[in-house]
């Protein structure tokens, strides 16, 4: 009897701890919704489409922040995507085993560097470089495109996108590499046997089989970029502007929370900031959920 009792205890105990996870999520969702109730009822859907953010007259709209978050993450994706694919191909198909181990380790270290350190480096090293060298150059030769117009100030959308891209490369690259590694050697050898080049095998044998997993990895990276806070807060310039130029400062959902939450005085101000957090939570949940599904599917089909 005694042994049965012990068995039941450990099952119950571990079940109890596991339930904490579900309770926590329920609590988080409840708190985010109830915390933003005031803002939700005052502004309704207008919150998402107005661009006034005025704590003094207590009018709040999230549009510039949604714009900043989505655009900076999109820029990050445009830069990170080809590079991550290149790294994943290198690690799974090209590198000799010894090189692979070390390069893998270094890419993983890139993921381990804390976000505040990217921010520090971005603020003191990257943005001055952009301001002095990159942005004037782009402005001079590509200035006819609205993307590259305006004064070069360093901090801004371009800097934000760049720093985010460095941060999501390891995520996308390592998941994609794992998926490439699950592609059976047999199907690759079949490609070589009919005289395909290495690149043709990658493009016509590996890619099609890994497609859903690759899309999943990309979405996961995008989700990470959306929720990133410190690094982007330090380099994006923190001005709620909607501008076509990549040089102009912008503001993201996460940055405005980081900068203003401790200074928020009125209840509606706090509530609006919590609604921004709710928004961020929902957006990243959606991306994460779809990404997880695609990655799992990508692994199963392989």
């Amino acid at each position: 009897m005694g042994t049965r009792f012990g068995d039941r205890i450990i099952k119950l105990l571990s079940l109890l701890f596991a339930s904490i996870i579900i309770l926590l999520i329920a609590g988080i969702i409840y708190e985010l919704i109830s915390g933003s109730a005031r803002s939700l009822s005052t502004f309704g859907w207008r919150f998402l489409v107005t661009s006034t953010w005025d704590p003094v007259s207590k009018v709040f709209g999230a549009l510039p922040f949604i714009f900043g978050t989505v655009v900076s993450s999109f820029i990050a994706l445009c830069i990170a995507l080809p590079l991550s694919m290149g790294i994943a191909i290198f690690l799974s198909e090209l590198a000799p085993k010894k090189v692979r181990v070390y390069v893998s380790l270094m890419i993983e270290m890139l993921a381990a560097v804390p976000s505040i350190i990217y921010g520090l480096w971005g603020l003191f090293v990257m943005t001055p470089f952009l301001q002095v060298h990159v942005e004037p150059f782009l402005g001079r030769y590509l200035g006819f495109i609205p993307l590259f117009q305006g004064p070069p100030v360093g901090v801004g959308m371009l800097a934000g996108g760049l720093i985010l891209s460095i941060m999501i490369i390891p995520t996308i690259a390592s998941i994609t590499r794992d998926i490439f590694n699950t592609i059976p050697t047999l199907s690759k050898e079949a490609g070589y046997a009919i005289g395909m080049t290495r690149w043709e095998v990658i493009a016509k044998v590996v890619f099609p089989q890994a497609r859903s997993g690759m899309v999943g990895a990309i979405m996961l990276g995008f989700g990470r970029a959306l929720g990133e806070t410190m690094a982007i807060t330090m380099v994006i310039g923190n001005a709620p502007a909607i501008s076509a130029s990549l040089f102009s400062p912008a503001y993201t959902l996460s940055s405005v929370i980081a900068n203003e939450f401790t200074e928020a005085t009125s209840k509606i101000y706090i509530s609006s900031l919590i609604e921004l957090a709710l928004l961020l939570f929902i957006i990243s949940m959606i991306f994460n959920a779809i990404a997880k599904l695609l990655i799992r599917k990508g692994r199963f089909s392989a």
Partner: protein
Amino acid sequence: MNSMSYLKRRIVNRTMLLLSYGSAVLGVAVLFLILSYIVVKGMSSINLDFFIKLPKPTGETGGGIANAIVGSFIVVGIASVIAIPVGVMSGIYLSEFGKNRFASLVRYFADVMNGIPSIVTGIVAYVFVVVPMHRFSALAGGIALSIMMIPIITRTSEELIRMVPDTIREAGLALGIPQWKVIMFVVLRTASTGIVTGIMLAVARVGGETAPLLFTAFNNSFMSLRLDQPISTMTVLIYNYASSPYPDWNTIAWGTAFLLIVIVLIVNIVSKVFTNTKYSL
């Protein structure tokens, strides 16, 4: 494919493979670029005072970040005390009793939790802890970090406990040992190296977090050991000092960043080496 000549195919092949090599080189170069800046700009401020003195007002030379180092350890310690039991026990549940729908729900929710942006975690801890306590506190910071740690530890523990072969469990049960003893003393012990490594990685990960601490642990220019008071941490200190207009504070930010990155990278490398030799993960 027939439309393309052999030469053209070879050129395409070469170009694409070169681009792939190039991106790997670029990725590694970026890592070294960032690390070398941190080392060059940060190392000069590291001396004994840096570890044992309190920050000085701007303009005065010397001083250190003792309060932030202690604070970081306290906050991460609180987070570990909460997250390790919850994570490991949940991991045991998922791997040993986890063949039901409730377990897949827990698994899914742990993944959801893992994807919560860190700044949102800060807001949640603010509402849970700071509002009822009416002040910022080390405890609130620890709870914020524990929310990030729980899902990481849960999923790694589950995975590692699952890797323990069933034959070991069966051997224990065949000797007449009750299941709970098999789990606690045989399975858990077999998986322990891996679990400890997983925990170390989780600690390193949340130890570098800033966003959840901004409005929970907040900040404190003095040495504080009290859990119900605001406390200084290395990451928040980097943020505040980096954004300040004073060059001497910026220098301290670089020094702190150097210390932080050394700790984080050492933990990461050590645990990678550990897992590679032990389990060849």
